[in-house]
């Protein structure tokens, strides 16, 4: 077969599955949006812009249009909250990122790991943790009343403040990581040069550090604007009373996109082959760079970083502790007990949901990882210009808000009468998992270069042997972490599963969401804790795998250095 032919053939699976289940539904949605709603459901011709008009105007019984600010207000509120989230995250992230960037290399890696780890936990559960803290019977109100500071519970939930808190909690690492990556790249001598040229501390900060951190802040801000999507989920749990009749759509965490950013950030941070000396590290010559302890000493930042880590972990810890609560009231402690874990394990509905989740996640992961590996390997052989279209197509599920994907896929499945039960769900999950699986694989491939493969070729290895003996073993950690990543993403998914599922295909997050909606019971704590532990373990393994083995080597160098007088 020709080279060209095999290239096309190996790109086909990804192109087909994403084309059919992503591109076509999107096209459907665009076409549908210009048609008229049918009297008995569905749509009918002719061409009309009524759907768009409806966004801003309401059609009265006499056919006159009156201005209706409902959607507009929702939209503006979303933008406002997203803006506030971005600014708050930036303010909180900058000192934290600076602190991390000025630590010694080994500690830096550990801190970044700690900061990113909680964000692999299902976002539904992370948000639920805050419900435990904020609600009227929650810990904060209990504590305040116990101390006699307040008499009645403060209404901490169901307001913009609560939503903002939830958003900041969710988006902080997406800001910390890119800012950290930008700061880490700064040559410490540049800061010394600033001081040398008569700049004061704040001038060095505003004139040198801030401009150089700006790309990171911008990157973080872009992820922060994804907050708009998340709002669709949060108002439900934190911002809106469960009883209220809301006209809003009912979707969930669209944070996977940002998780990708998180992943890239993490890979960047761990794997950045950038030879420039990090702020806390040593110069390329192995000699300590000139920035002295004088500037690395940042009083107050240590405690600040500790507080931020506590902010990230405390809600999860509270959930974990209360899962072992023996009482029937969620936040009233009544002795240590495994009672609710037992209740979860004997609950048939939960077991069915868990089996569904695992089945969907496993099949989607296997298929998506296989397709992603094939596609990544093929793209690597193409020039950037020629691989551009395909790379864009594969990234499409990340760019399109998940709620849009879910709605359009639902419409598409309905219109072609596709009723495969779990199969529908699996198809949608495969499409969604491919870009996540591909991320670490491509990162690893790019890090490999072709030197080793050329060496193998030079040593008389035919292509198959090069792949089997050199490429695949070196790529394996990337493939495994890609698989783990897509497994976590699939387990975490709520929007697609909620919209595309029907009676028999409830997945665990959908079930948990239903439980929370019906009323918060200790059972929710137990099941959430189980999910939390699974996510944390998988994330720890995935991140650990993708860490380059360069770290111990550099440690040796620094050890040698300190021993030479």
């Amino acid at each position, binding site marked *: 077969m020709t080279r060209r032919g095999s290239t096309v053939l190996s790109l086909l699976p990804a192109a087909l599955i994403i084309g059919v289940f992503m591109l076509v539904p999107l096209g459907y949605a665009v076409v549908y949006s210009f048609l008229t709603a049918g009297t008995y459901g569905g749509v009918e011709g002719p061409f009309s812009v009524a759907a768009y008009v409806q966004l801003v105007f309401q059609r009265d019984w006499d056919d006159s249009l009156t201005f209706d600010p409902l959607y507009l207000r929702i939209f503006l509120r979303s933008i406002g909250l997203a803006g506030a989230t971005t600014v708050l995250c930036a303010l909180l992230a900058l000192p934290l990122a600076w602190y991390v960037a000025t630590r010694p290399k080994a500690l830096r890696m550990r801190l970044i790991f700690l900061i990113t780890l909680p964000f692999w936990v299902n976002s539904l559960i992370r948000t639920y943790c805050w419900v435990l803290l904020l609600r009227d019977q929650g810990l904060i109100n209990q504590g305040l009343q116990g101390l006699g500071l307040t008499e009645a519970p403060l209404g901490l939930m169901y307001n913009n403040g609560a939503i903002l808190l939830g958003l900041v909690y969710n988006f902080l690492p997406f800001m910390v990581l890119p800012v950290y990556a930008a700061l880490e790249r700064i040559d410490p001598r540049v800061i010394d040069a600033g001081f040398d040229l008569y700049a004061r501390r704040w001038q060095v900060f505003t004139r040198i550090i801030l401009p150089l951190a700006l790309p990171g802040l911008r990157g973080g801000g872009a992820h922060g604007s994804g907050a708009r999507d998340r709002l669709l989920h949060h108002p439900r749990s934190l911002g809106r009373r469960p009883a209220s009749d809301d006209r809003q759509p009912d979707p969930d965490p669209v944070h996977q996109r940002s998780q990708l950013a998180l992943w890239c950030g993490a890979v960047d941070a761990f794997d950045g082959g950038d030879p420039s000396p990090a702020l806390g590290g040593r110069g390329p010559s192995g000699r300590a760079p*000139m920035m002295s302890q*004088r500037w690395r000493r940042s009083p107050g930042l240590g405690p600040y970083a500790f507080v931020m880590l506590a902010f990230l972990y405390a809600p999860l810890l509270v959930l974990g502790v209360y899962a072992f609560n023996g009482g029937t009231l969620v936040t009233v402690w009544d002795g240590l007990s495994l009672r609710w874990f037992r209740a979860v394990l004997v609950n048939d509905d939960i077991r069915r949901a868990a089996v569904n989740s695992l089945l969907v996640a496993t099949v989607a992961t296997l298929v998506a990882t296989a397709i992603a590996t094939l596609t990544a390997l093929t793209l690597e052989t193409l020039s950037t210009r020629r691989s551009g279209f395909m790379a864009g197509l594969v990234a499409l599920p990340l760019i399109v808000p998940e709620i849009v994907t879910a709605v359009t896929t639902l419409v598409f499945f309905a219109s072609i009468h596709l009723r495969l039960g779990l199969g529908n769900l699996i198809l949608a999950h495969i499409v969604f998992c491919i870009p996540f699986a591909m991320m670490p694989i491509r990162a690893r491939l790019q890090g490999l270069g072709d030197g080793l493969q050329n060496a193998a070729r030079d040593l008389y290895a035919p292509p198959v042997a090069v792949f089997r003996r050199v490429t695949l073993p070196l790529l394996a950690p990337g493939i495994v972490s890609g698989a783990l990543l897509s497994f976590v993403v699939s387990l975490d998914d709520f929007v697609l599963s909620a919209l595309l599922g029907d009676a028999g295909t409830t997945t665990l997050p959908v079930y948990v969401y239903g439980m929370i909606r019906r009323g918060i019971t200790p059972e929710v704590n137990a099941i959430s804790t189980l999910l939390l532990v699974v996510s944390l373990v998988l994330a720890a393994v995935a991140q650990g795998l993708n860490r380059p083995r360069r770290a111990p080597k550099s440690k040796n160098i620094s050890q040698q250095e300190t021993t030479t007088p």
Partner: protein
Amino acid sequence: MMQQPPISGEDIIVSLNRIRLEYGDVTALDDVHLQIRTGEFFTLLGPSGCGKTSLLQLIGGFQDPTYGAVFIDGKDVTRVPPYARPVNTVFQNFALFPHMTVAGNIRFGLEMLGWPRAKADRRVAEVLELVGLAGFGTRFPQELSGGQQQRTALARALGPEPRVLLLDEPMSALDLKLRKEMQGELARLHREAGITFIMVTHDQEEALSLSDRIAVLRYGKLRQVASPEELYHRPANSFVADFLGEANLIPAELLNDGPATGVIMVRPEAVTVRPGAGRVSGVVTERRFLGRGYELTVTHVTGLMLHCLEPSWEPLSLGQVVHLDWDDSAQLWLEQ
């Protein structure tokens, strides 16, 4: 404890008083006492890890000494931050601000000092001219060659008209050819700017050719401070003798005549080969033809290897026993 500035008849610009610097339990500098004269080209020379960069950082204000005091222009600046010291640094790898143009980099220090706009602009143009980069002001550092980046770093440090210019291995990022060129350039700038230069290097040739005086450091201690000529011809100890140029260090008991203790130093070019009697004898074990003569390695019976340069008309064969001699004036007694 109050430290008094050193009393000296000479015009001293930088004075280091009994400096001690510790990193944890590592002593980077140990009791360094050093005075640098106004206008001189002073070099800190030593193998890597000897503490020379730490010493420069102390003068620049990037390190606090564990003990001791730093005086610049007669004022105690030990606890004065870098931005308040009348010194500027040319950093290793240049440390140019990547988000500012060449002119922006140079203007930065002037802005920080509060120079009026017009005056700063004039000065920027002036130093760009001085380093031969006129017309490059709008470029960004990434768009420059290594040599141009080096010139920009020099211009940036010279811009605020510091009393002292500190140069931290300024040539280490340049290739050999460019290094030679920039050495000439540095000498010219030193003449034209008329200020004190303090340079750190581990390149002895660079140090010998550029400096008025050199301080040789080892293990955080000053070994000798002297002019290049004196360092070369009258090294104070065997480390300096061996570090600068080639030296034969011969334990006195190996000599045919003379006392039984101590070490003498003699440069290879001062050694002559005699067929008859000499001060020390050995076997020719290596012979390299250099055009102007031979470089011989003569191995003493104890295994000590001696080097000498021998005019070419006297071809010696390997394995031949020879006797080495030199003038009394060429040999130097060294402390151990």
